[in-house]
C-alpha cells in the first residue's frame, strides 16, 4: 500500500534527537550528571561520526592512538533513527568515547545550525574545505581551541585534584570553540592583527554563543531555578534580575574554569560586570578575554532584561510556574542569540570595533522586524550604552537608499550581483565616488553570499551580502606621509606621529574595506565602511600593535600576529594577569 503524504513513517526527518551533557559533568541533578536531549540536523552519518560538515576523529596526539570511529546511527524498531545514548549512565558519560564523539558532534552541529538559521544560508568554513575536524581527545593539556590551519577543533584533557577533566564534555567549551570556527568562515580577516576590539569580539561572540546555547536548553534552566512546589511553582525572587545574573548558566566553563582558576568559579563571569568608565584606556582591558567581557556582559545583561520582563505577567502572589519560567528563559536566549548572529552580516570585514556590532545588530533586527514592540532593541542599546559603547559615526553605516544621488547600474547584471564577486567589483568600480571608495588602492571582493530570512510577520527578506577589502603595503615613514595627506584632505591639521618602537623603514600593511548589502533586486541598500584612508584608525591600530609588540617574525607590522602555525587560539586560553604584562 502506498504511503500517504501524512504517513510519518515515510518522511525523512529534518532532525534527530541526541543526548548531550547539558552543561558539564560537575553540574548534577538528583545526584546525576545533568543531560539534555537536543535536536540536531539530520544528515547521513558515516562512522566518526562524519557528516557533510563535521568529521569527528578520535586521535590522541599525546598517546599516538587512533580510536575506532563511533557509530551513532542506530535505527529503532519503528524504522526511525534513535539515540543510542538515551538514559546513559554517569559512568558511561565519563568513559564511553563514542558518547564523547556524539557530545562534541551534536553540540558543534547545533551551534552551526543556529548560525545558519539566523543568517538564512549555508556558511562556509574559514579554510579551504567542507568538513571541520572535531578531535574530542586531542592531547593531554588543559586547553581547547580552534586551529584554522589544521581545520580542526581540538579538545584537551587533564587531571586536576585527582579528577580527569575532559574538555569535550563541557557544553559551553565545545560551543565556544565551534563559534570561533563559524565566525572565522564569516569574517576570516578578524584573525588579522587589528585594534583590540577585534580579538576581543572573537572571544566575546564565542562566549555569548556558548552561554546562550546552554541557556536555550529548558532542562538547564529548570535545574538552575530549583525544585518547584507541589503545584510546579517557585518563588518569584529566584527569577529576579540579580538572582538570574548570579545563576549557574551564566558562568562559562564551570568545570574547566574551576580546575584552572583555583575554584573561583568558572572561567569568566560576565553578567553584571561593571568595567571602570575608562576601561578603553587601561592596559588590563586590552587583553582580549577581559575586553571581550564588556561585550559579552552587555549581551547577557540584555538577556536578563528580556527574560525578567517576560516573567512579569506570569507572577501570581509572588510565585510563578517554574517550567513556564524556564521556557520563557529559553525563548529569550534563542531570540537574543538570533538577533546577535543576524548582525554579523552587517559587520565590516576588517578593523572591527564594538560600536560596529551594536549598529549591526540593531540594523539587522530593524530590517527584519521594523516594530520593536517588546523593546528588545532599546533594551540591548541601553545595556551597551551603560558599558560605554554607543553607535559608530554616521558615515560608517550608510543607508544608500537615502543617498541624494542614485548609483550607476548601467551594464550591470542584477542577478549576477547576488553571487558573482566580479560583478560586485564592477559595481564598486563604476560607483567608487558614490561609495567614497578610493580606486587607487588594491581592492578585492572577498565574498558574495545570498541570505534569506523570515520576519515575525511571516514575510521573507532576501538580500545579498558582499565584503570587499582594500590593502596597502607601505613603510612606516610612508604611512606618516600618507596619513598627513589624508588628514589634510579631511580638513584635519593634527600632526601624525608613530610609536617610536616602529622604525621608519618597517614594512606595514594597512587594511580597509566594507560590506555592501543588496536587496532581492540587486539594488544597493547599505554600505558598512572602514575606509583605508582613515588616518586616525590606521595610526591608532599601528600604535596598538607596536605597543603590544605584535610584529611578525620579519619585524613587519600588520601582516600577521606572528603566532606560530595553528596556534592563534591556543595561547589565548591560558589564564593571564591582564594588564600587568608587556
Amino acid at each position, binding site marked *: 500500500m502506498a504511503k500517504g503524504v501524512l504517513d510519518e513513517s515515510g518522511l525523512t526527518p529534518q532532525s534527530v534527537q541526541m543526548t548531550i551533557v547539558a552543561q558539564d559533568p560537575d553540574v548534577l541533578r538528583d545526584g546525576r550528571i545533568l543531560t539534555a536531549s537536543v535536536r540536531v540536523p539530520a544528515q547521513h552519518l558515516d562512522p566518526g561520526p562524519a557528516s557533510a560538515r563535521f568529521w569527528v576523529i578520535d586521535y590522541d596526539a599525546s598517546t599516538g592512538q587512533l580510536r575506532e570511529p563511533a557509530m551513532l546511527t542506530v535505527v529503532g524498531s519503528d524504522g526511525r533513527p534513535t539515540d543510542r545514548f538515551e538514559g546513559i549512565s554517569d559512568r558511561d558519560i565519563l568513559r564511553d568515547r563514542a558518547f564523547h564523539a556524539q557530545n562534541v558532534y551534536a553540540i558543534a552541529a547545533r551551534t552551526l545550525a543556529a548560525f545558519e538559521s539566523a543568517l538564512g544560508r549555508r556558511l562556509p568554513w574559514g579554510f579551504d574545505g567542507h568538513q571541520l575536524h572535531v578531535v574530542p581527545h586531542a592531547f593531554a593539556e588543559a586547553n581547547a581551541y580552534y586551529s584554522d590551519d589544521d581545520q580542526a577543533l581540538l579538545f584537551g584533557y*587533564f587531571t586536576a585534584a585527582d579528577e580527569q577533566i575532559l574538555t569535550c564534555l563541557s557544553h559551553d567549551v565545545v560551543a565556544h570553540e565551534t563559534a570561533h570556527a563559524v565566525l572565522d568562515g564569516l569574517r576570516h580577516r578578524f584573525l588579522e592583527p587589528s585594534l583590540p576590539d577585534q580579538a576581543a569580539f572573537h572571544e566575546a561572540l564565542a562566549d555569548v554563543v556558548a552561554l546562550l546555547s546552554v541557556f536555550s536548553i529548558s532542562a538547564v534552566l529548570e535545574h538552575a531555578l530549583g525544585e518547584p512546589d507541589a503545584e510546579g511553582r517557585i518563588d518569584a525572587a529566584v527569577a529576579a534580575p540579580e538572582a538570574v545574573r548570579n545563576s549557574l548558566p551564566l558562568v562559562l566553563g564551570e568545570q574547566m574554569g574551576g580546575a584552572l582558576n583555583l575554584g573561583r568559579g568558572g572561567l569568566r563571569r560576565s553578567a553584571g560586570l561593571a568595567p571602570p568608565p575608562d576601561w578603553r584606556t587601561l592596559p588590563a582591558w586590552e587583553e582580549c578575554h577581559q575586553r571581550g567581557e564588556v561585550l559579552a556582559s552587555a549581551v547577557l545583561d540584555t538577556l536578563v532584561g528580556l527574560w525578567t520582563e517576560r516573567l512579569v505577567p506570569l507572577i501570581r502572589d509572588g510565585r510563578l510556574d517554574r517550567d513556564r519560567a524556564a521556557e520563557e528563559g529559553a525563548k529569550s536566549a534563542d531570540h537574543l542569540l538570533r538577533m546577535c548572529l543576524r548582525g554579523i552580516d552587517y559587520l565590516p570585514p576588517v578593523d572591527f570595533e564594538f560600536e560596529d556590532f551594536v549598529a549591526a545588530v540593531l540594523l539587522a533586527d530593524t530590517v527584519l522586524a521594523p516594530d520593536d514592540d517588546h523593546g528588545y532593541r532599546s533594551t540591548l542599546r541601553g545595556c551597551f550604552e551603560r558599558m560605554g559603547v554607543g553607535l559608530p559615526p554616521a558615515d560608517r553605516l550608510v543607508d544608500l537608499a537615502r543617498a541624494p544621488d542614485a548609483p550607476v547600474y548601467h551594464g550591470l547584471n542584477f542577478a549576477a550581483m547576488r553571487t558573482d564577486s566580479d560583478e560586485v567589483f564592477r559595481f564598486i568600480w563604476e560607483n567608487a565616488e558614490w561609495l567614497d571608495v578610493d580606486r587607487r588602492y588594491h581592492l578585492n571582493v572577498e565574498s558574495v553570499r545570498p541570505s534569506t530570512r523570515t520576519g515575525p510577520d511571516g514575510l521573507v527578506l532576501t538580500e545579498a551580502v558582499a565584503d570587499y577589502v582594500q590593502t596597502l603595503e607601505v613603510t612606516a615613514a610612508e604611512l606618516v606621509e600618507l596619513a598627513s595627506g589624508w588628514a589634510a584632505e579631511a580638513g584635519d591639521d593634527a600632526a601624525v606621529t608613530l610609536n617610536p*618602537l616602529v622604525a621608519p623603514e618597517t614594512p606595514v600593511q594597512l587594511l580597509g574595506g566594507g560590506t555592501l548589502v543588496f536587496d532581492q533586486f540587486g539594488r544597493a541598500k547599505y554600505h558598512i565602511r572602514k575606509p583605508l584612508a582613515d588616518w586616525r584608525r590606521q595610526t591608532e591600530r599601528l600604535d596598538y600593535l607596536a605597543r603590544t609588540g605584535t610584529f611578525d617574525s620579519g619585524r613587519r607590522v600588520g601582516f600577521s600576529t606572528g603566532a*606560530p602555525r595553528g596556534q592563534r587560539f591556543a595561547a589565548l586560553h591560558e589564564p593571564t*594577569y591582564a594588564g600587568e604584562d*608587556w
Partner: protein
Amino acid sequence: MAPRKPRPEHIAVRMYQVGFGDCFLLSVRYPKPLADGRAERHVLIDFGSTHSPLSHKVDMADIAEQIADDCGGRLDVMVVTHRHKDHLSGFANDEAAATVDSLRPGLIVRPWTETPDLHADAAAPVGAASRRLLTGLSEGHAFAGQLAAAIGDKGGGLRDRVRKLADEQLKNAEAIARLDMWAEQADSEYLHAGMASKMEDVVPGMSVEVLGPPTVEQHPDVVNARARNPEYWMLYQGFVASGLPNATLDPDDHDPDGGADPELAGATEEEAFAAGTATLERDIPAGPARWLATRLRNQQVHSLKRIVRSLDDALNNTSLILALTIGHKRLLFPGDGQIENWRYTLDRLPKDKALGKRLRSVDLYKVGHHGSRNATPRSLLDLWGDDHRPASLLSTRTDAHGDSEATAVPRATLVSALKERTDFHSTEGLAKGATVVLETDVAAGERFSRV
C-alpha cells in the same frame, strides 16, 4: 648604652657579563672597620648562565675570579634566588666552585622551596599545600629530565627549543649539592614573603624586606594548581616513558614550524608535511585521520612546549624578591619572579601606603627574568617616571629565548619603557671581562652613577 649600629656610607653594585643569566655583587662600605676588622660587606646574588654573550664564550671560572678580586677575597652572603640553571650553573663548574669556596661564604640564602627535609609538621605558613607544591615540582623536574633525554640533541627547530627549555628545568643536582654543603658549613636561611632575614645581622645597616616568594598558604595563586599537582606531572612522565615523544619528535621528520610565519617560510605547507610521515602515522589508515594526525604532531610539540613552560613559570615563581634598604637607598632584586609571585605584593598596595611609598622610592631595580614580558609588572614600573628615575640593570642576551616577537626575551616594549623611565644599563654588547658598575653614597639625594 648599646653601641650604635654601624652605618654604611657607600654602595657598589656590579653586574657581570654572563650572557643570558644573572650574576650580581652588592658591596657595602663602612666608614670604619666592623668587629671582624673589615670595613665592607659583599653579597653575591646569583651565579649562573645558560647562553654566552653573542660575542664570546663565557667561562664561569673567570667570572668567579673577577668576583674574588672585587670582594677582596671574602663573600659574606650568597643569595641564590631560585634553582634555574641561569642563576646557579656556575656552582656546578669545578674551578668556579673552588674559587667560591675559597671566599668562605658566610650565609647562604635561598627561597623556602629549597628547605631541606621540610617536615610534615612544619609551622605555618609552610603547610600541607606548600609541601604538595614541592612534591609537584619534584615530579615536574623528573618529567623535564625524561623529556630532554627523549628528544636528545637533534639540532634546530621547534623540537630543539622544547628540549632546551626542558633542559633548563633540570634539578642542577651538582650545583645544589655544593650549595647544600656550604649551607651546612656556614649558615643558611630559606625565606618566604614576610620573613625576617639574617642578612640584616651579617650586613649591618641593611634592612631586608622579603616580598616573595609567598608560600601556597599565603598566596594560592603563586603557582597554578596544575603545576603543583604531582599527578599532573606523573601523567606526562607516563607519556614520555611510552616513547611517544620520541616517535613524535622523529629527527628525520621535517619540522614545518621553524617559528617563521607560514607566509614567509620557503616550503609550502603541503611540501613540508609531505617530506616525511612518521612511522607512527603510517599505522593509521590513509585518509583524513592520517592527514590530521600528521598535523597534530605539530600541535603536540607546541602543547609540550606550553607544558614545559608552565614548569618554567612555576620555578620562576619560587624566586626570591628582595627589597634591600641601605641608608637612604632602596634596591630591588626580584630574581625571575613573575607576576604571579609579584601579585602577593601588588594586591597589598591599595591598602598599604607605606609599601607603595617604599616601592616608589626604589633607587635600583634589577630587571626581572632578563626582561621577559611578565616579570616586571606594569603597575610597578608605573610607580617610577618623571619625578623619580631609578637605575635599572638588565642581564640578558637577545635571541636566547622566545620563538616569536610575543615571547622574545627581552621584550622590546619593556626595554623601551625602561629606557624611558629609568637610567637603563644592560649587559648586551658588554665585552668579555667587562662589568657594569653602579655606585652611590647612601646619603639622601645621591643617585647611582655608572663608573
